[in-house]
């Protein structure tokens, strides 16, 4: 048995220790917000947080995370202490109307959230390195604007505001 702590819940799963976390989340736990994009950790659609760190779950065996706190997009707001509402990142995504098809956006939001938790004021190089997710709809300009707003809010101590300029 593999014990996983996902979004604050502990679950016992009768699965192989080498099963990638992505497929444990999607097929065994029914958490479909985390997406399959490439299977080789190249696109970031499957990004989740493991003890707060962004991890590409398609190449992460469950054996590597059995003693960790795993957060998926479904648990992001609750984990941030804003249950039943949205995190500042999610709200910025709405304010800037970032998603198009939306498929990559769970991973994008998880990557950005982890980056800003680690460094509320990242420089351009950090942003480009931390947010290497692929988006085929090309939402990058809006991702950039949303991050800039979040960074500005962090700088002004205004984190978590639901207000924001809509583009």
């Amino acid at each position: 048995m593999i014990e996983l702590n996902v979004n604050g819940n502990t679950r016992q799963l009768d699965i192989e220790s080498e099963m990638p976390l992505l497929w444990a989340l999607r097929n065994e736990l029914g958490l479909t917000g985390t997406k399959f994009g490439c299977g080789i950790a190249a696109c970031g659609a499957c990004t989740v947080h493991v003890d707060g760190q962004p991890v590409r779950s398609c190449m992460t065996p469950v054996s590597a995370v059995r003693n960790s706190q795993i957060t998926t997009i479904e648990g992001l707001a609750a984990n941030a202490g804003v249950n039943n509402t949205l995190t500042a990142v999610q709200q910025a995504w709405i304010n800037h109307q970032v998603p198009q098809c939306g498929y990559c956006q769970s991973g994008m939001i998880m990557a950005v959230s982890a980056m800003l938790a680690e460094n509320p004021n990242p420089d351009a190089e950090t942003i480009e390195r931390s947010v290497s997710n692929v988006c085929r709809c090309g939402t990058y300009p809006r991702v950039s604007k949303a991050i800039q707003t979040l960074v500005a809010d962090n700088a002004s101590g205004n984190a978590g505001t639901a207000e924001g300029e809509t583009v």
Partner: protein
Amino acid sequence: MKMNRRRFLLGTTVIGGGLLLGYAVTRPTRQFLANRDHAEAGQTFLTTWLRIDPDNRVTVVVPHSEMGQGVLTSLPMMAADEMDADWNLVRVEQAPATDLFANGVLIKGFAMSMGLSVPAFLDRTVDFATLKAAEIMNMQITGGSSSVRFTGEMGMRAAGAAAREMLVNAAAAQWNVAADECDARNSFVHHDTSGRSASFGELASAAAEFAPPRNPTLKTPDRFTLMGTAVPRVDIPAKVDGSAMFGIDAMPAGMLYAAVTTAPVFGGKLARVDNVEAVMQRRGVQRVIELEDAVAVVADNYWRASEALKQLQPVFTDTEFDSSNSSDIFAEFDAALDNNERNEDVYAGDAAEALNSAAETISASYRVPYLAHAAMEPMNCTVHFHDGRCDVWTGTQDNLGIRGRVASVADIDANNVTVHPFYLGGGFGRRLPQSTNTIDQATRIASHFDVPVQTLWSREEDTRQDYYRPAVSSRFRAGLDANGQLIAWENVYIGKNEPVEAAHIAYQVPNQKIDYVESPTHIPFGAWRSVAHSQHSFFLESFTDELAWHANQDPLQYRLSLLQDKPRHRRVLQEAAARAGWTTAAPEGRARGIALQESFGSIVAEVAEVSLTEEGEVRVNKVVCAIDCGRVVNPDTAASQVESGIIYGLTAAMYGQISIENGRVKESNFHDYEMLRLAESPDIDVILLESDDAPVGGLGEPATPPISAAVTNAIYALTGQRVRELPLKNYRFLPPPTEAAGNV
């Protein structure tokens, strides 16, 4: 065996006046059928696409798929605006995949855009939305940048206006006053003289007694309340918290997962499969299924299926293409351009004579490789056969078309197939109903089970079993008179595809001879965002740029001089150039290029500003795009579609290359089929322009075509090196040795 290039998108099914005109109006009306079959107690359909609940909520039923373009917002905006419904009381539903919601307006739009006449009495009528032809053709297609300009302009607005008229008539009858004394505002009908008012919900059932007017009066733009405003998209909240459901997220009870390997060389068949016994011993594996050209492992978890598949040893038959490489295909193209019979595309004046008598001729050849779509959501489809019926869960650009396809593959009646619509994790043409290899496989695999089976392709399979954007080679010759004036334009290219006008030029050239030759290959091809425009715009706008530099003219001024009769084209060029600072020097180490393309009813000019990295790779720093789409329905979704189109086209220009090696696709995943990412994404400045009296143009595709030439034209301005073949990842550019770039 080789596939002839043909009109593959929408043309063949749409053209045919008989179908179009032969089934004008169905009886009983759709309104009646919608109320009988799709309305719950108290609900009333006023037209097929509008339903009103007693609590005054209006539901707009959208016969298009949401793939990020915002159609679930823009079309309801158009209906609600004409109806004078309160947007806060509007709900949106995806149309079910049934005959009743087939989209006849779309057929009309494409027919009109192809120059087919539509009888005046059908123009802008609600009844046209009920064309039997749409049912026959199973049409609910989302493609061709058509949703707003056809379904919205001709269908949703008419439906909303008709509903408004019916509601006003119902109120007038109830109050015994003249209808023209009544007014609809915010989901209420008011009779201001007497101070009476009633909600749409209260009036709905009485309104349904009135026949929908055939020619409802549409609003003039000055009376729009929703159209033209940046209404936030209704689908976005679910796309930030993981709750949005894509086809891959379908999880009907008891579902199994299939992983598939298809013959790597197109046309190959499955000869035999080795190691089946060992694979069947693996945990969770239910079955190995052999298909004509593929083999699938079905298991209780996708990873188990996928791992088991790796252990399977399928053997595929040899084909006549097993040694075919990209270089062979391009050599065949060259031979075809030299030798094959030429088919006329555009003839104007006498290009042969003009070229003979020209003081100077200029020639250039260009080519682009095959491209995959690489939608983020790998291709998938879930199918469940039970009780003589079949349920299908998938994200598709044509739910009704997929219903028909599954019925045909399964050999059951389409009425016994239920398609459950989902969001699409990218469409880009890959999920059109002409590109159904995944759907076909999923149907055949699931037919062996009485539980649902999700067939899900790996990224490798998705990359290697696509319907590719065709590779194209194109040759040009221009004739100049003694004054350097462009008097002849000759072009011959490989394969004519949709849309038919892709190789046509906007520029005034008196003598034109544009031909195409066929050179079939074994590579399957399909519609790729902007279809043939994405290749031809690169060719046309590169060659035009070459002519401008040859004439020692500014590329913008040169284009303007050939567009004296096209004010809308001139305007987008001038607006984009002005915003980009065209007449000022680019920042140190950068240069700008410009390109123009009309497509899908919109006219686009783009200016790219580029620089080189230390390694000589191209970096696109900035793009300014001016687009005239006639009228803008939602400026925010419009801008996002333009941004998206630019990045899709730029990704192709920078990295896009599907190579054929030994008959099969060499690239497999994002490490070798690379994508533009945030770090390489340029600043994009979008200028939305409107033109009074111009029809509404599309937005999903038109920004894609011009970007490649805008970038390569900028590279020429920067380095003096002319790019005649994409992608740019294959080049290392050197800054010009002297200050003079090229032949300025």
